[in-house]
């Protein structure tokens, strides 16, 4: 009976040690993941700002002007009005 009790106690202690190891290792793994996600979020945030800047640059008037000069679109033509035909015929 005594031996049985000692064995059970031993098994429980070993089980608890294994469980403890598992919890500690899981904690470390999850902590690493949290760290990774934090870094990735940070990276994404920075990349987002960089992309936002690039998009804004491409839709800026300055960029449009550079492109217009590049393709020689420098003279604006006057509109033709068709709702009052006397102007359209001019």
């Amino acid at each position, binding site marked *: 009976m005594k031996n049985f009790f000692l064995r059970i106690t031993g098994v429980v202690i070993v089980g608890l040690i294994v469980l403890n190891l598992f919890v500690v290792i899981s*904690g*470390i793994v*999850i*902590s*690493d993941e*949290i*760290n990774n996600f934090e870094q990735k979020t*940070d990276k994404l945030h*920075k990349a987002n*700002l*960089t992309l*936002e*800047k690039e998009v*804004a*640059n491409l*839709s*800026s*008037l*300055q960029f449009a002007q550079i492109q217009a000069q590049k393709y020689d679109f420098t003279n*604006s033509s*006057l*509109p033709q*009005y068709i*709702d*009052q035909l006397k*102007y359209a015929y001019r």
Partner: protein
Amino acid sequence: MKIKFIFLLFIGFYIAIIVRLFFLQVIYSPASKSLYLKTNKLYPVRGRIYDQKNQSLVLNQNSYQLYVEPKKVEDKDKLLNLLSKSLEIDEASISAKLDMTKYWVAIANGLTQEQKDKLDNLNLKGIGFDYQTKRFYPEASLSAHILGFLGKDNQNEDIGYLGLEGFYDRDLRGLPGFVETERDILGRPILIGVQQRVEAEDGRDLILTIDKNVQEISKKKLLEGLEKYQAKKGCVITADPKTMAIISLVCLPDYDLEKYYLFNENFYKNLAISDLYEPGSVFKPLIVAAALEEKKIKPDETYNETGQVAVGEYNIKTWNDKYEGKISMTRILEKSSNVGMVYIGEKLGNKNISKYLQKYGFGQNTGIDLEGEAGGYLKPTAEWYPIDYATVTFGQGIAVTPIQMIRAFASIINGGYLMKPYVVQKIISKNKTTEIKPKIERRIVSQLTSDIIRKMLVSTVENAEAKWDRPKGFAIGGKTGTAQVPIKGIYDASKTIASFIGFAPANDPKFLTFVVLYEPKSSQWGSETAAPLFFEIAKQLIVYYNISPNR
């Protein structure tokens, strides 16, 4: 015996642990806490600013603060030399900041990713970087005076100055959050420890009434105008006269938003909202509208313009000292007759003049949502002399800001409503969009008076003494102004403020544009400087707004 010994050893061991924990957690608690409990401030992202078509005017970009930990620096001279070369900053100014007795010194703010990478590659000991964001302006300084800039307060915290950055600083700034976590020796979070996170609330985005294309047209034309007419400075304001939503607001000279600190404070001043000046003849339609509203005059009523008019000891004359005899009220505006305006002023009466000046909102802030507005000063009626009532009818002897002037003018052409001018039409936060609607302050004149004055102003443009290169087929209303500048109480005839205020199309105005040129040298007259500049802008706006000819 052996078992007892091991048992006592265990007990002793546990007691030692408990005592140690007691010391760590209770007695030395604050000191030990900082070793594993890390609290970081979470900075909110400052709100962005967009124009009426959701085109970005102000964004945020990545940036870094360079710091040095002097105690870890091995070779100070080498460090200074390399930092100076990489950052293109004078070695002496870095040296002045680098106090070797301190543990941490900030050296430079606003470094780009490229600059940071370059410094990282040098493998210098004792330097580090803190992440920050800084403002980015895709359209450079197109709207410098509207936007304002982001500077630092005395605690080195970001704070908006002037324009929208100043006025909406609280909305744009957002609320900081914090994260408190227990970390192990490698900096990883301890899952069973304290994990507290209060998210930062990002700043609100602003959607403006400004159209960056109109802003670009105005700025380009104003720049050309300043050179052509050799004016000292100038402003162009365009608004929707029905709502007083500001579509563009440009004053030159302005400043570089990215390098605002290189400019003198005078460049920061937004003349359109803070500069008081005597408006001159652009003021006349306001008095005419008041007289029409009070039924003191009719548009076709005549006045006998025979010569100079004496008011007390002063003689008032027309700008060219020429007189046409019997002229209508409309003709008074067309030829911008000062003596005719004195007649209208007399018919309107001093009490009514004072009443309407108040009603038009002179001497008060318009309440425009830009920081830095000046309301001006309207002296009490008890201090007015007869000559003051006479000169105010043609816009002398009263100080107004350009924004007050355009607002008052809008009220006489939009059906009579004095509107509150505004620049922001939407404030967008994470969960809510707040729309800012046009606000009627009060009604000044009736629809009928407004219709009459619009027709009179079209006639003023078409029959003015100066002939302009106007867009053909369009009814445009407007009025010129040439105000002399008082210097130490005396008007200097050579220095004037030339202006033109006009709108199109006249029957249902889509835009109202006010052009002011300070001290033009090519000609002192508004009709020869500000007016042609207005028509240059109007030609482009008519095409931009797709307004078809109506006559």
